[in-house]
Every structure is written in C-alpha cells, then in structure tokens.
C-alpha cells in the first residue's frame, strides 16, 4: 500500500505549477478579467506543449490511435489543483477533463480523435442533470434539440458543446443555426460561463448506448476536478495570509506573532490539509474504486467547498483592510472558490446525494 503521489505525479504537478507561476501571474489574469483574452490562448498553447490536454485521452480506442497519455482522474486533479492555485483562465476541467471522461466511457473514438487533433474543443453543460430550474432543460426531437442549457462551462475557445437531455449526451456545434449564446457575468471573472438557448439546433448523439453511465462519470470527475481547483485556490490564500502576517507590523511587531492571528492561520491549515488526502482519494477512486467513485466525489466536493469557504473568508480577514481591496487581488481566489462551490452541486445538494447513495433515507 502506498497512499501518496508517485514521483511522476509530483513531477507532473510541479511542471504545470512552475509554468503557471510565470504565465498565469496575477497581472496577466487581471488583464484577462478586463476583457483581453490573450492569456487564455497563451495558456492553452503552453499547456499543450506540456502535454496537459492529452492526460486523460487514451493511447488508442477501438483500434484508433489517439496518442493520449492514458492517465487517470488523479493526474487531472493534480493539474487542476495547480490551475486553481494560479487562478488560471483555463477550460481544462471541462474540455480535457469532463468531456474526455464522458467520451472515453461512451467509447466515442471519433470525437476523441478530433479532440486529440485539436479540431474540437468542448464546452460542457451538465447543470440540468443535477437539478432543473424553471425554463431550463433540453429535449431532443429526431436530430434536433431545443430548450435551454444553463451555466455551460468552459466556453473559452470551444468549438462544440457537450450537453445532456437528462439521459442522453449530445454534441452541438458552436455558432450553428438555432444556437444562441448568452454570456453571463459572474463573480468569478477568471472563467467564462454561458447560457445556451437552442431552437431546433442540429444535435449529434455521442457513441454508445449507455449514456447514463458516461454522464454519471463525467459529473463525478467534474466534481472532483472542481474540488481540486478549490483546494489549490484555498492553499494559495492560506500561504498568502501567512506571508502577509509575517510582513505586516502593528504595535511594533508582525501581526503574525499575535495569537489571535496565529490561531486563525492554524485553523485554516488544520482544516485544509486533510482535504488534500481526501481529494487524492476521491480522484483515485474514479479509476480504481468504482463502487466509491460517486460517493467520494460528493463527499470531497462538499467538504472541500465548506473548508475553503472558511479559508477564503479567514485569509481575507488576516489581510485586514488590504484583503478587501482590488489592489491586492486576493478577491480573485475568493471568488473562484465561491463559484466552484455553486457549480455541479452545492454542499447541501451533494450531501443529500451522498446520503441517497448509501441508502440513508
């Protein structure tokens, strides 16, 4: 038994982290949030050079060579943690995480090969598979689809949308007839979310006849990846709070020498560190412990969301008035954690699902 990361996994996470530390530094992210999309493109090509988009792609599927790295959700989660840590504008979690997991499970080598070649990049809309709000939901009629898919993630640079009618998975081409996009303004400007209104848009079912399983796996993997993103962002907020507390003097001493401040930091660290082991295990379970995959995804995302909300708030507080300013930019991490919490199921929803999975009530 070995509970921890392998040398290769540590190297993978370090190399992505090192790249992002330079490429996705705060001022570049700030420009992105102000409407200059250069950073998303730069990161996409930089990550491509590191092989990041190919992590979950199989080497070959149904006799077709795809040239992927054939790794698991754990490796993807380690990459996502680094992305969250550097609040990177990236559609990795959806385009090369969720979409690839779903298509891999369904056995759709054609779409995967397009993804591998770079001719398709998929945004993902799964909100209605988790809960349907008024006026939302898609219905398929023959080979066209109508209705609304809300909170579609990863639209930056996307060529297609991977959507669900609730039990089927379909692909819709971006910009095609009957596809209308509404860009949403959210608290988290490091990633873009859109709502789609479809009016008899042409839709292609993905391969395979067990879409329910592929859908479940996509959502589970998506939840784990969002948990990893949140973990990375929260860990960074804690580090920033500790660093600030050592620099900032009041009453002729660093505020980090006051127990009131030390205990805030200790509480953040003590609650956050076990989240790391939980995320590792939940990610590992996706590929190696199938009977626990859904439950662990629910437990990990709900727990990491709650702990990180506490960290986001407390780390901001440790920064005093400065934490509240735009100048310091701490709010980008705060908001990224806040947005992740709401997407693909908030904590209460996830815990209700976890209870159901265990036959509790």
């Amino acid at each position, binding site marked *: 038994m070995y509970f921890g990361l392998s040398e290769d996994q540590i190297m993978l996470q370090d190399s992505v982290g090192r790249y992002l530390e330079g490429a996705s530094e705060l001022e570049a992210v700030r420009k992105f949030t102000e409407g200059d999309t250069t950073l998303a493109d730069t990161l996409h090509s930089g990550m491509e050079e590191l092989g990041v988009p190919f992590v979950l792609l199989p080497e070959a599927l149904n006799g077709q060579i795809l040239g992927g790295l054939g790794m698991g959700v754990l490796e993807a989660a380690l990459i996502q943690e680094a992305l969250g840590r550097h609040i990177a504008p990236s559609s990795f979690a959806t385009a090369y995480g969720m979409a690839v997991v779903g298509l891999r499970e369904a056995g759709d080598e054609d779409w995967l090969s397009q993804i591998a070649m770079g001719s398709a990049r998929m945004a993902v809309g799964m909100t209605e598979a988790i809960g349907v709000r008024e006026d939302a939901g898609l219905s398929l009629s023959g080979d066209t689809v109508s209705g609304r898919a809300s909170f579609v993630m990863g639209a930056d640079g996307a060529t297609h949308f991977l959507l669900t009618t609730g039990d089927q998975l379909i692909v819709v081409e971006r910009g095609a007839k009957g596809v209308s996009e509404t860009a949403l303004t959210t608290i988290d400007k490091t990633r873009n979310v859109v709502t789609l209104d479809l009016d008899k848009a042409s839709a292609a079912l993905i391969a395979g006849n067990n879409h329910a399983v592929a859908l479940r796996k996509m959502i589970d993997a998506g939840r784990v990846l969002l948990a990893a993103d949140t973990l990375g962002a929260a860990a960074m907020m804690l580090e920033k709070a500790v660093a600030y507390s050592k620099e900032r003097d009041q009453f002729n*001493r660093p505020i980090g020498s006051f127990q009131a401040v030390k205990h805030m930091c200790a509480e953040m660290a003590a609650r956050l560190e076990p989240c790391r082991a939980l995320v590792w*295990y939940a990610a590992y379970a996706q590929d190696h412990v199938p009977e626990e995959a859904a439950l662990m995804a629910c437990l990990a995302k709900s727990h990491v969301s709650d702990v990180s909300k506490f960290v986001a708030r407390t780390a901001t507080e440790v920064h005093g008035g400065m934490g509240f300013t735009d100048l310091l930019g701490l709010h980008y991490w705060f908001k990224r954690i806040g947005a992740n919490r709401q997407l693909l199921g908030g904590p209460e929803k996830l815990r209700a699902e976890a209870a159901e999975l265990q036959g509790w009530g």
Partner: protein
Amino acid sequence: MDLNLTQEYEDFRAEVRGFLEKHKDSAPSRSDRSVRSKKRLAWQELLLQNGYAARTHPKQYGGFGAAPDALKARIIAEEFARASAPGGISGQGINMLVPTLLELGTDEQKDTYIKPTLAGEMVWCQGYSEPGAGSDLAALRTAAVVDGDDFVINGQKIWTSTAQFADMMFCLVRTEPDAPKHQGISYILIDMNTPGIEVRPLMTMTGFAEFNEVFFTDVRVPVTSIVGNRGEGWMVANATLTHERGMLGDPDAALGRLRSIAEIMQKEHIDGKPLIEDAVYRDRLVKLQAEAQAMKMNGMRLTTLSSEKKSSGMAGLLVKLQGCELNHQMADLAIDVMGEYGILYEDSPFIRDQGMWQTHYMFDLGLIIGGGSAQIQKNIISERGLGMPREPKPQPGSFKSGASKAN
C-alpha cells in the same frame, strides 16, 4: 497511489485474522478496563508472544523485536477492530514510559521496569500537570530535594489518571530551584506505595472520577530513580509527549462512531418515520462523514509517510486538534438526534446506548484540553507548521494576575 497490499501484507493480514479466529474466545470483553485481571493478563501474554502487542519492542525486554512497520501496525489495528477483539494493554506506562526508558533509561531501569510493564503486571501513572502548571507545564513546583541517598518530594499533581491502581508513577519534579524553569526539572520514577503519597479521586462533569489528585508529603525515593540527568527532565518528558500525541485520534474509530450514529438514526423513529429521513439531521451526519473520511485519508497518508521514514509535517501536526473536535461533534449529533432521550443518563429507564454519547460529549471536552490543549496545538501548528513568529516573552511584572481595574 496504490491501495492494494502486496502479498507479504495480505499474508500478514491472513495471519492476524487466523490468530483471532483461533483465540477470540479467550479474549476479555473490549469494555473490560479492569487492571491486572487474570483474563486480561493472559490475553496480553498471548498477544506479546505473537507480536500483536509491543511488536517493535526489543525481545530482551519482553517485546516481539520486529522492525517498525506502520502498515503492519495498521493491519493489526484493523483486524482487531473487525473482530471486535481488544488489542494489547495500552496506557501511559506502555505508550509513554517504555519508549522513554528505551531511549534514555539506564540498563538497570530497563531491566527492572520494561518487562513487567509490557506484561501488564506493572501499572503506571503520569505525574506531570499541577494545579499551577497546565499548558505552562514547565512552571511546575513539586519539589525534590536531595537528602543523603534519597530525593525528598513535596507537592501536588493533578489529572493523574489510573493513580488509584498504579504501582509506579513517572513524574516531573523541580530539583534545581535556582535554574531557569525549563532547566530545573528532573524526571523520576516513584513507587506509589511509598509512605507520604495520598491519592484522591477527582470527580469530573461526567459523574465519574476518571482522574485523581496526588499529594506528596516528605516522600522519599532513592536518587537512582532519576531518568536522564538532573535538570534534564524537560527534554526527557518531551520525548514522551511526542508519543502521547501519537496515541490520540484514530481515524478508523471516528468512522466507526459515525456508523453507530447512522444506525441510531435508522433505528429511532419519530412520528413513525426513521430519523435518517430527516433532511436536517442527515445533512449533519454526511457533513461529519466527509470530515471523518478526510481524517481517515489523512491517516493513511501518515501511515505511508511513516513507512517511508518521511516527516509527517502539517498532516501530522493537525491530528490531535482535528480528531478530538470531530469526535466531540459526533457525540453532539448523536445526542441531538435522540431528542429528549438524549438527556437520559446513568441508570435511567429507557436509556439509549447506556448514555455513552453524553459521556463521550463531556469526556471529549476533556480530551480537547488534555495532552496539549487546542490552543497549544494551534500555537504548535502555526509556529512549527506555518513558520509564524513566537509571541514575544512578556517582561516580568507586565501582567498582574487577579488585579482588577475597578479596584
């Protein structure tokens, strides 16, 4: 990540399981806490012979002499829990004194004390805390003055669990009153039958006397009872405090407690519906499950770090703080779901689970304090784990205790 066990460990698990199947009938009940009962001592002997107690202690002192292996230790714990069989005798003698003697004791001390302690025949208590020395343990004042070949001890200890049964105490005393406080302490071993020792039970909020106070009046022990040198007791004690922190917070136990609460919620009905169908209580249950799961995974990570001889870092520093808090919150939920039945206690009619959740709820509050309070843990986490600065030492006389501005 590889959560499969290699053949060596699968075989070891089978061996432990086989042992338990064969011998389970001779095991005392898990709730049997009696000291020196024949059944417990016989069970301990069997465990020692087979390496399921004192596994890594040297053979010459009655241990099994195996190389340290965190994974095997974990497998033993898991299998004993699975079979509901009690593990080897634990307690402060085995967990704290023995490792200290092995590291710092004289050959004579090792020969005299370790074997009977491991066998469960010699019971120890720990004399550290005093009424005026809790978190600031180094402020302790119980004095030991050399007179001929003896130390003469006067003073008082508190929070001394098992003192009423103990044969011996390992104790911190002040031998160098003029030295700075950390350098004036010595670690000595005291026979509890020595004249001048009085043990008074200390009743706590649980209604039980889990602890005692121990009073020393001109208690004479030979100067050879010291472990380490005079004035080095603080260093000797710190070696054992590390062992005590390791004792607390078993993540499998937390998940076990959680399962018991889920069972209560399935069993107990209100208005004809099982409590597990109540969305609010269920949410609290799953919230604690997620946290218990995180602590279990953190524990597995620690097992691997320990097998790899790597430092456990933050993952290790947080265990006591988080583990005790989690247990306390679980007892809190168990009481809440029982509603009015949650207040039943002692031998009340209609009582559930012998009132153990109330006992846990109150006793866990003691555990949050004992063995390094939550506030001390947070100091350790922030200073050692996060590298935050220590609080500057106050100037002498800068605080007046008991002074009130109104006067």
